[in-house]
């Protein structure tokens, strides 16, 4: 396969409009679930729900957000169909970014605890 054929192969393998619509609906549902988890966690749906969702609301929000992120990247940004090189250009900085966020939170909290002692 020569260069020009490769370049054009990507353009023809994009998902169908029906799949785009399905992804949009899933994204909408996941956003609704995020807001529902937030409401349940803060007691907006009653104390019973708050007891269940209160302790896990942050984890739930992170999982739902990660799912939405992956759906947009895979189907709308076409990473599922495109070259692995492009996926690497995106995924490695994301991992680095997540590490930076995690490291800064741990580091700053560590110094806060040490400073308090």
């Amino acid at each position, binding site marked *: *396969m020569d*260069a*020009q054929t*490769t*370049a*054009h192969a*990507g*353009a023809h393998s*994009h998902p169908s*409009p029906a799949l*785009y*619509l399905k*992804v*949009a609906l899933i*994204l*909408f549902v996941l*956003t609704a679930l*995020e*807001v529902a*988890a*937030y409401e349940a*966690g*803060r007691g907006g749906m009653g104390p019973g729900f708050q007891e269940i969702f209160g302790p896990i*609301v*942050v984890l739930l*929000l*992170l999982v*739902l*957000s990660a799912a*939405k*992120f992956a759906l*947009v*990247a895979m189907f*709308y*940004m076409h990473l599922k169909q495109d*070259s692995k*090189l*492009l996926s690497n*250009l*995106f995924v*490695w*900085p*994301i991992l*680095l*970014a*997540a590490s*930076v*966020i995690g490291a*800064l*939170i741990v580091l*700053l909290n560590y110094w806060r605890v040490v400073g308090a002692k």
Partner: protein
Amino acid sequence: MSEAAAHAMEHTTTTGIDSRKVAIWTLIGSECLLFASLISTYLVYKGKSLVGPLPHTESQCMLHGKMQTCEQIFEIPLVTFGTAILLFSSFFVVMALNGAQSGNRKKLISWLALTVLCGLFFIGMQVYEFQHFYHKGLGYSTNLFSGTFYTLTGFHGSHVTAGVIWLSTLLVLAIKGKIPPAKALNLEIAALYWHFVDVVWIVIFPVVYLMR
């Protein structure tokens, strides 16, 4: 050689991928690190403001020259609606791209116009939100929350504005009939940037607005 093949040949690299596509993905990769620094700054200072207004709770704050009790600042329903609009704009832009690739000019123009409208709505929502917060006593340097919040969401808003300008220029070109299927990649690159703006908001929305 067809026009499409000639156009593809013009920008291909030794990897077989169009150089403009590699460039936009490299830009997106570097932008991830920019937003990571802004999000981590927000998280590190979260809950450390000494005076209000605060995002999720009532607090004591200086308003109109005297200390008084301020209510929580966030309005979740409005931001949720803005989030849904931004998510749907990502769907609209892939539909526009589908129209461009299949040579359906009417489909391209209508979906692209909808995308631009969604972007404008989101910017309008953010301007309203900032103005509303300011009138509730939350200036840029009021407390640690306000400084990190305005910087993070303001940077995102400026990216949305850049995306709207970019997509609007493509809409004008589409109306003039200057985006044939052979040039659909021009829209695909702008769409990739638009999706990136969307995924950044997918992270910002729960981290900033929903996590208490």
